[in-house]
């Protein structure tokens, strides 16, 4: 029997993403509710080990497309292959993790198949054979239930770190079917790639230590004499300050984030920005240092499991969302906290 549920396996540098495992887990739940098996869809230059991992994590079988032209993810190429596979299999649900790649891929596949896409889904239920997906809109101020009723498959991208990633069963195996890699004409060309510094991706991080405009507030740091401009001095101070955040993040195996104010002031690059116009994150622990907690910042981190605020101002709005707080100067608290955690966690 053909699967009613397909799941897309996103990967990078030959590694399956944690978000893909979470999507497999979510898709398996949907498949069970629909009384169906689950098929993993894997595209790339080399797909064998990825397909095997998808099956170990819950897929019943896998369809793979392999081609040198699929080495770099290019949305046009991937979309053509995926759309063709879905046309052939005619599943009811197509689930993907929400990543930069899959957002574009799902968008294009939906055009090819004239169907709808629900990105950033945080919950779903199966009702009368239909999938009812919940997703945050308006920067998380509202939740909407979404139904794709007019066409199939229902394309659902699930948000990272919301659904648990299933445990692997190394003994499990299943059939792997090779499908045609009908890539078609691909106009774009990937010239190069530069990984972001820090290593841990914000969207995957279990712990995030975030800094706001408050990080610039250390008058006792003396910038080198060659920096004379006041704004440059402020940036220099803040960049030294972010080093304290990096050390705390490293002690916890986490990533560093920032508010828009910190990014706009030039303390850290935009890739660090958390919030409505930055990244949306849901770590287990979010430590906000010198962040006031503006509504647009909260939009990006309010789903964090535990929020800790470190702020000089006891009235800062961030304390309304935080589970734990320290009222104090981050320049005094952070080094002490890093030292304390290193000692207690044995690092």
């Amino acid at each position, binding site marked *: 029997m053909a699967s009613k549920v397909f799941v897309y396996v996103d990967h*990078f*540098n030959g590694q399956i993403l944690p978000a893909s495992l979470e999507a497999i887990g979510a898709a398996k739940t949907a498949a069970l509710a629909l009384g169906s098996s689950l098929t993993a869809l894997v595209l790339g230059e080399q797909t064998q080990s990825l397909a095997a991992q998808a099956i170990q994590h819950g897929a019943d079988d896998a369809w793979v497309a392999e081609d040198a032209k699929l080495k770099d993810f290019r*949305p*046009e190429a991937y*979309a053509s292959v995926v759309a063709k596979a879905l046309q052939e299999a005619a599943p009811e649900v197509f689930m993907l993790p929400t990543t*930069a790649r899959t957002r*574009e891929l799902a*968008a*294009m596949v*939906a*055009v*090819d198949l*004239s*169907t*709808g*896409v629900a990105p950033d889904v945080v919950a779903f239920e199966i009702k009368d054979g239909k999938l009812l997906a919940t*997703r*945050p*809109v*308006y*920067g998380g*101020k*509202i*939740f*909407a*239930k979404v139904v*794709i*009723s007019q*066409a199939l498959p229902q394309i659902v991208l699930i948000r990272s770190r919301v659904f648990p990633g299933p445990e692997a069963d190394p003994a499990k195996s299943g059939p792997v079917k090779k499908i045609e890699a009908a890539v078609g004409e691909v*106009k*774009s*060309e990937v*010239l*190069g*790639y530069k990984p*972001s510094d820090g290593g841990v991706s*914000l969207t*995957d991080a279990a712990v995030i230590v975030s800094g706001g405009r408050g990080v610039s507030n250390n008058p006792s740091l003396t910038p080198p004499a060659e920096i004379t401009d006041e704004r440059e001095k402020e940036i220099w101070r803040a960049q030294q300050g972010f080093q304290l955040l990096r050390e705390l993040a490293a002690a916890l195996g986490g990533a560093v984030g920032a508010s828009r104010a910190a990014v706009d002031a030039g303390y850290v*690059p935009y*890739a660090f920005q958390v919030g*409505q*116009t*930055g990244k949306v994150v849901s770590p287990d*622990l979010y430590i906000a240092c010198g962040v006031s907690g503006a*509504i*647009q910042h909260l939009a990006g981190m*309010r789903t964090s*499991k*535990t929020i800790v605020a470190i702020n000089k101002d006891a009235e800062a709005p961030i304390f309304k969302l*935080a*589970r*734990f707080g*320290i009222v104090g100067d981050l320049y*005094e*608290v952070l080094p*002490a906290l890093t*030292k*304390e955690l290193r000692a*207690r*966690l044995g690092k």
Partner: protein
Amino acid sequence: MNIVVCVKQTPDTAATVTVQDGKVSWGDSPLVINPWDEFAVEQALRTKEAHGGKVTALSLGPESAKEALKHALAMGCDEAVLVSDPGITAPDSLVVSAVLAAAIAKIGEVDLVFFGRQAVDSDTGITGAQVARRLGWPSLSLVAAVTALDAAAKSISVARMLDEGRQEVKAPLPAVVSVVKEICEPRYPSFMGIRKASKAPLPVWSLADIGISAPPQSALTWPEVFAPPKIETRCEVVEGDSPAAKAAALAARLIEEKVI
């Protein structure tokens, strides 16, 4: 360069958005140009300033969306067009992309289309890629920098911001580019620009005008909207005589509660 920039009108991000009678409401908060689209307009203007040509701002929406287009005109766009039709109700991205692609085709001989990365109301971030797919043009999303643009050879290179880092991609024109905030700093509309925008003609195209005979149907509906579950938090402010004592108390609590 014949450039189109697509803009949407959205509630201000500072608006208090609530649900009233099963409908989303932002009270009397202003409707503004989608903040992401200001970066797209700026990048479109800079491209024109460097390579010549013209910039047309394009929007799909009700009559009120003219205000977002006027903002784009006041920033310096040469022309603006609104697509508005009573046949379009509650459009999803499939409908929006079909309409925008048809309008772009009508504008004709377009080299580049700019989008903001997403709209701050529906938050989907897929419309740009869908328009590209419909037109058969390359889609370059999450663009943080245009690293090269050769108008004569009709090619563009960009740096894209992926989750894992930066990717450099090259594509032939015409292409669709959706931008992130890092790409530029949007200019403020000038006084002269605002005056010009208030007088500029603002044609409204119907579906028939862009060659669509039957209104496209949404594949997706929002049968229910609701306020997010209230997060019941009571902040436990950790006390201590010194920063070190506070830090120690916090570490102890985080470990006790199995947060770490």
